[in-house]
């Protein structure tokens, strides 16, 4: 355990702590993490012959994946944060080079369907997965973008891992319960707008 603690310097420890806190601290942690290893972008340009923009895309995705892993406790702390990020970044760069000729955007798919189905028992997963694959993603995104009021913000924050309590603080709602009711109404509204067009 002591060895594991020694794998992180103070700055890395501080970043991880911030990421594990809700709300504004988490955002600060995201920015700090991004800044800390942003020189990897130059490595991507130098070692993988990517353009700066491509290396930056790969690095941004790397940071987002790492944040997800840290928050979801999939990051086992078996290496320093730097080594961990570098490994993901290297894979992203290789992935990008491989996919450059086919579908460049697929490198951006940082959260897969399987991530979301973890909580569902294995027996139910194929059913849900099949139904989700049939969803009209573009239409859903279009409706989400057009949702009025605080709906979009509420749903984006919720999907970003904010609790209702943290959303209440962020968007100045009276209580977490009000946030929950409003958020569920937004899903209901989205459902109604999606149904007839589907």
């Amino acid at each position, binding site marked *: 355990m002591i060895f594991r603690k020694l794998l992180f310097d103070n700055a890395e420890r501080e970043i991880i702590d911030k990421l594990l806190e809700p709300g504004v601290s988490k955002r600060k942690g995201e920015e700090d993490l*991004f800044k800390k290893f*942003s020189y990897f972008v130059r490595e991507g340009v130098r070692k993988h012959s990517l353009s700066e923009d491509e290396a930056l895309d790969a690095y941004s995705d790397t940071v987002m994946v790492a944040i997800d892993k840290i928050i979801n406790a999939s990051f086992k702390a078996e290496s320093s944060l730097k080594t961990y990020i570098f490994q993901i970044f290297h894979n992203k760069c290789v992935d990008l080079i491989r996919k450059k000729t086919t579908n460049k955007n697929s490198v951006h798919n940082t959260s897969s369907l399987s991530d*979301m189905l973890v909580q569902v028992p294995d027996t139910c997963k194929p059913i*849900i997965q099949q*139904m989700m694959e049939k969803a009209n*993603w573009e239409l859903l995104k279009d409706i989400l973008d057009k949702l009025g009021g605080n709906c979009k913000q509420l749903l984006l924050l919720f999907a970003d891992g904010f609790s209702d309590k943290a959303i209440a603080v962020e968007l100045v709602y009276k209580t977490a319960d009000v946030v929950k009711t409003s958020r*569920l109404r937004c899903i209901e509204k989205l459902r109604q707008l999606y149904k007839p067009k589907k």
Partner: protein
Amino acid sequence: MEKIEYIDDYFKGVIIPEKKSVFEQRLLTDKDFAEEVAFYLSIVQVARTSNNEIKRGHLRELYYNNISHNSVPTTLRKLWPYAAMIAAALITLVVGFYLYTQPVTEPSKLADAYFSDHVLTMGVPMGNTNGLLIQGRDLYNVGNYSGSLKKFKELLERDTSNTEAKEYAGLAAFKLNDYKTAFNYFAQVAGKEDLIANPGKFYQALTLMKQNTPFDKENYKRLLSEVVKDNLFGKEEAVIFLKKLN
């Protein structure tokens, strides 16, 4: 609404174990219910994708505005001051040798030689995360002096005490042959007494040398003498200039 709340509670993990197993059983037997669950997860997925797009844009902005030039590993950052000192010493030697051996004695040509060989590009604004400063520097380095000056002026409107911006604005104005503006900026830099290496007075002298009107001769010689006497930035060059100009 109740159904959505039920699904929401399940995925937030706040549902009681008995209800949880009923929920999971219902997924296998009730197609409509399974569709509701799939829809709920699809929304979260779409929102996540949107979040990622927003974050990617934000990170891109963060990179280009603030950190692409600053974020070097600590070891490199530690070595940078030594590398800069060695580079500055070498440049001074080369420029000094050039100036000393060249028969050029015309003040404006001496100033031109200094600014073309010595201050061709502005260095990385270490420790300063101001985007406008970096943008202005980048424009300067590609020869867009008017664009560069505009950025520095914009920055100075927001932060009137930014000495780096004043120095760079003076350099850009110098390149634009706007000597009055350049001189004023350099004078403001020279007025800052808390800088370790203040180039203000030396640059003022160079500006007057470049302008080279009959009224300037006495002033640039006086400024160069002060640079030597007070051991200010540009002292070595000032000694050579004074020898050549006398």
